[in-house]
């Protein structure tokens, strides 16, 4: 790109290069632009269209019924539970993953022996698929077998019921459901945190390594304690990393399906149900295609509520 404006001497050639240089990227991008236009935006529009029809049987019908599917969803016990669970899961999952990641990164960064080994051990769970994690943690946290056997042998008479608990704290009545933190979702969040905190560690480790030692050194010379160095120098420098992490983890947690499907299913009284599971069951088991599309559109909306402001702000930064 720089060459185009490089000088007045070869302006004829410059224009030629200019043209061809414009054409190449466009031609190179065209196939993927077309593919994305059809297979992403085309299908999103199709899903959106279906969600406004009455295609809730095996046989396709396409009468326009406006927002009826959405009205149904928001008056539905299961969908209200899903929204509560997604909120609870997202907050727990992101918060704990970032804390664990930061903690692990600090430990690994403290120049211990065998750093590479620890790094790999912590990152390793990320190599598993959520399905595997779900199956394993379902066994680990099964209330009659699993970790409760160990707890019982240690003398705990009333071990937690993990993902089978139907408790919701605090029980605030809202709509059809009790609003609060479903205790069962903590078990699911634990499994997800286990899987993703290695990733958060890797991100934070990269962030920590990019902070110049001079900065910390000068802070120390100015008389800052280690605690102050961490809080006033290191943490602010990690902010962009934290922002990226929140975006990445949030889009995972808002769309989560496989982990919950393998680990708990919808759960008693839908305490561990999420929109993804509901969408799958209502669409492919109940043949309620329009309602399923409605759920998909709401999930898309939730994720874009989070992503779009981020995209706008990073776009602005780029222009600056």
């Amino acid at each position, binding site marked *: 790109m720089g060459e185009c404006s490089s000088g007045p001497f070869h302006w004829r050639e410059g224009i030629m*290069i200019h043209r*061809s*240089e414009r*054409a*190449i990227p466009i*031609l*190179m991008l*065209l*196939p993927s632009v077309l*593919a994305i236009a059809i297979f992403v935006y085309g299908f999103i529009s199709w899903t959106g269209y279906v969600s406004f029809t009455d295609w*809730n*049987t*095996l*046989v*396709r019908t396409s009468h326009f019924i406006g927002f009826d599917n959405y009205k149904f969803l928001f008056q539905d*016990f*299961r969908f209200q539970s899903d929204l509560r669970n997604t909120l609870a899961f997202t907050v727990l999952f992101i918060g704990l993953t970032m804390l664990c990641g930061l903690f692990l990164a600090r430990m690994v960064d403290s120049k211990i022996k065998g750093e590479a080994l620890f790094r790999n051990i912590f990152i390793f769970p990320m190599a598993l698929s959520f399905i595997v994690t779900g199956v394993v943690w379902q066994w680990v946290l*099964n*209330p*009659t077998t699993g970790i409760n056997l160990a707890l019982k042998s240690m003398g705990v008479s009333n071990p937690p*019921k993990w*993902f*089978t608990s*139907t408790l919701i704290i605090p029980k605030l009545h809202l709509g059809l459901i009790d609003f609060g933190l479903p205790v069962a979702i903590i078990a699911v969040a634990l499994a997800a945190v286990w899987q993703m905190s290695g990733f958060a560690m890797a991100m934070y480790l990269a962030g920590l390594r990019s902070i110049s030692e001079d900065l910390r050194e000068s802070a120390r010379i100015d008389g800052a304690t280690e605690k102050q160095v961490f809080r006033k120098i290191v943490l602010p420098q990690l902010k962009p990393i934290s922002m990226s992490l929140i975006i990445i983890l949030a889009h995972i947690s808002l769309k989560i399906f496989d982990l919950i499907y393998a680990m*708990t*299913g*919808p*759960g*008693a*009284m*839908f305490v561990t149900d999420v929109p993804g599971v509901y969408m799958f*069951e*209502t669409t*492919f*088991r*109940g*043949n*309620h295609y329009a309602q399923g599309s409605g759920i998909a559109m709401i999930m898309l909306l939730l994720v874009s509520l989070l992503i779009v402001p981020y995209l706008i702000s990073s776009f602005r930064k780029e222009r600056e």
Partner: protein
Amino acid sequence: MKKLSLTVSAIALTSMLLSACGGNNGNNGNNGQSASASASDSPKPSASASAPASPASGGQVEIFSWWTGAGEEAGLKGLIGLFSAKYPEIEVINAAVAGGAGTNAKAVLASRMQGGDPPDAFQVHGGAELNTGWVAADKVIELNDLYESEGWKDKFPKDLIDLVSKDGKAYSVPVNIHRGNVAFYNKKIFDDNGLKAPTTFDEFFQVADALKAKGITPLALGDKEPWAATMVLENVLLGVLGADDYKKLWTNELSFDDAKVKQSLETFKKMLSYVNEDHAARNWQDAAQLVANGEAAMNIMGDWAKGYFTTDLKLEANTDFGWVPTPNTTGSFMVITDTFAIPKSSKNETNAKEWLKVLGSVEGQDVFNPLKGSIPARIDADISKYDVYGQSTIEDFKTAKLAPSMAHGSAAPEGFTTQANQVVNIFVTNGDVDQALKALKAAQSSSIK
């Protein structure tokens, strides 16, 4: 110059990519066309081929099912073996999709049917799943000619033929029968405590109280997948309403806000107070295992649980475990039947009909069912090939009133079943009878037409 040549090569590359995509699209289009063309042609060749002079020769037949579990896969292989011995020139493609109760397979099937690439014959539960699904969608062919030529009309029970027919036309061929209203019990527990297996609700609650007093879980439940609890509910409904009124629920002749349905839910709720505490973490096998291990006394489940007891857990029927119909349902038979239908645009319709003939024959049913652990749908099968449970169930099947299972999609459209499962999933935890009745009533009026 270097830049120019780069441009040229880039353009060449791009156009290659584009043409590759275009080529693919063209091919797909052609495939679609040829498929639809052959579909519209198919009535002609099949009509001529069904004449006795020219039996099916060569070609393929693609069989779609969800039989991938231990016994059922062996049964399917047995059927395919039988078919191949009769028609060695026809290549059988076994397109089975794994997943219990066909949960994954049904989604695959729906997309294949809607995408215009159907298998030649597919497994489907008799009843609403067939009639309100594929028949209403006009996606399957009518099989009355097959029933005539094979003389099946009086070889299957009339109630069963009704289950696979709409407006007097049969649309699929039943292969097997499972019974849904069975209470399996641990014989040792019952003998040790001097108890008799309950056949009425009163007896059930007496036995359950006696067991509870001894510290034994009376009823094992594994409703991690909610349909297991829905099965208990439908059996209670069958017990309280009786087979005739139970069937009226699915034709809108009886409303879900009827007092007797309310009574059923109250009974169901009372039964739920006798189940194992960790029911939400167990699937149906885990629950059956509680009975097998003597940790719980009874389990209400379809008779595939018998296969699990005898094949997987190596238990002896009638010595290790016993069975009775669920309370108040002696003389009724909650029927779950696997059947096969042929899609309208099947590419090998003639071959598929030959496959259905094998399925419907005495030979076919007696190859498949002993392996799968179900009983034959025909009334003239060879009873000596079945174990003690099978033999007694075959006898019951001949005389009992058949009732379609709601939990397995035979009674009502899938949409209703999904919603009923949701209602049950909430009810098991909060026990709110009125809320459940209201939700079931709403599901009835929106899904059952």
